[in-house]
């Protein structure tokens, strides 16, 4: 991505519950908040060192992340809805509340 792309932050989208693909069939909509954006400025010397060690195969092939992630650091408590069978469901931590580069 071009350097200087939109920085990591909170985005929001109104989606129907069914669109979340969790198996619930409901026409209700929820405000889905998620984290997106670049974390260029959050790179540390740790990342540089780790990237280099991985390139040199000094770090075994296990899963290693050598770049900060734009991820939620806090989530919204819960959101409830009624499904098409007239049964209520409550989802915990569906939406992000705060984002950061970690």
């Amino acid at each position, binding site marked *: 991505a071009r350097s200087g792309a939109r920085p990591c932050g909170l985005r929001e989208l*109104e989606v129907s519950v069914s669109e979340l693909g969790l198996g619930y069939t409901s*026409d*209700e*909509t*929820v*405000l889905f908040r998620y984290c997106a954006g670049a974390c260029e400025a959050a790179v540390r010397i740790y990342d540089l060192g780790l990237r280099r060690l991985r390139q040199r195969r000094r770090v075994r092939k296990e899963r290693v992340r050598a770049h900060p992630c734009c991820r939620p650091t806090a989530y919204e*408590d*819960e*959101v*409830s*809805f*009624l499904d*098409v069978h*007239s049964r*209520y*469901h*409550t989802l915990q931590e569906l939406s992000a509340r705060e984002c950061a580069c970690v």
Partner: protein
Amino acid sequence: SPSSLQGSELHGWRPPVDCVRANELCAAESNCSSRYRTLRQCLAGRDRNTMLANKECQAALEVLQESPLYDCRCKRAMKKELQCLQIYWSIHLGLTEGGEFYEASPYEPVTSRLSDIFRLASIFSGTGADPVVSAKSNHCLDAAKACNLNDNCKKLRSSYISICNREISSTERCNRRKCHKALRQFFDRVPSEYTYRMLFCSCQDQACAERRRQTILPSCSYEDKEKPNCLDLRTLCRIDHLCRSRLADFHANCRASYRTLTSCPADNYQACLGSYAGMIGFDMTPNYVDSSPTGIVVSPWCNCRGSGNQEEECEKFLRDFTENPCLRNAIQAFGNGTDVNMSPKGPSFPATQAPRVEKTPSLPDDLSDSTSLGTSVITTCTSIQEQGLKANNSKELSMCFTELTTNISPGSKKVIKLYSGSS
């Protein structure tokens, strides 16, 4: 004319204060505070009636009738609401005998109207919706969507749903007490532009009506293994000051009146809907009895089996929910987004218009002999008065509806008179 009238002291009208404030005023005045203490002792005694018969108690009552405590009121969801209500009932249980069918509402009359809510609702949801689209859409679903898009509404809605939906054990469906508390918080703290849309949305099909019925999660907040007798349920409700107040408020604002355009006292649908919603989360929680889209029937969870000789009174109590034209008109009005446009002065009727028989709601109304009712007649003027319209100096204020509610037993003819008197 009877001379005794001139001498007596005028008991003018004064704007009501809230009972917490009135209590402070009384406490600051030795005569009032001592009498109030006496009255509380009178009421605390086991045999209330004999205590009230003694001179000191009577004297205390006389003094307190002149104090601000006498006509103090409370506000829904005010800060010290319960304390306010406790003070109110400590006075009014002294004045009435208790066991009245209708009790005066401790709450200040509602001045806002449905049209205020519609205006706010349309601002929020930007709906000046196209009527064709809106006719087909599921209004209750739209209401849920609108709520989920408002953080405060979403949060409080999810809170009561997750509590009311949490199964405790195979024998205990849920924690009803916590569910009721969460429901009360929802209806107290979320603006009615959201809560009414979810509670009183109009429906064209069964799915929508079932969603409307499910709004308060009836399997936890409403239904129970057995249905108690409605008078027993009323007795239980009246033990708790809050429930008692909300029931009195419902009766005051929703009681069918045959002298108003809308069948509602002071033609205020909002007052009725607000007091109906105010009962949710208490023993007297009402709900839709089925999911038929158009046949709006609401009722508390009770019946009239086991009423003994009070079957008529029980059925009358139940009819105030299940066959109440004011409540039904109010729900339908909200659902259709209509409000009666009552200009503050109200329709003016020539003084001696011949009595006209109004569009008589087909269903029997309130008082028949079987009730030991003290207030079969509503002083609609009282509620107009309490809406801040100064009675005695407004020339305009002569319109007042004589609320002679008649018991329409099968086949009997009903007479309605409209009077205008000038003060």
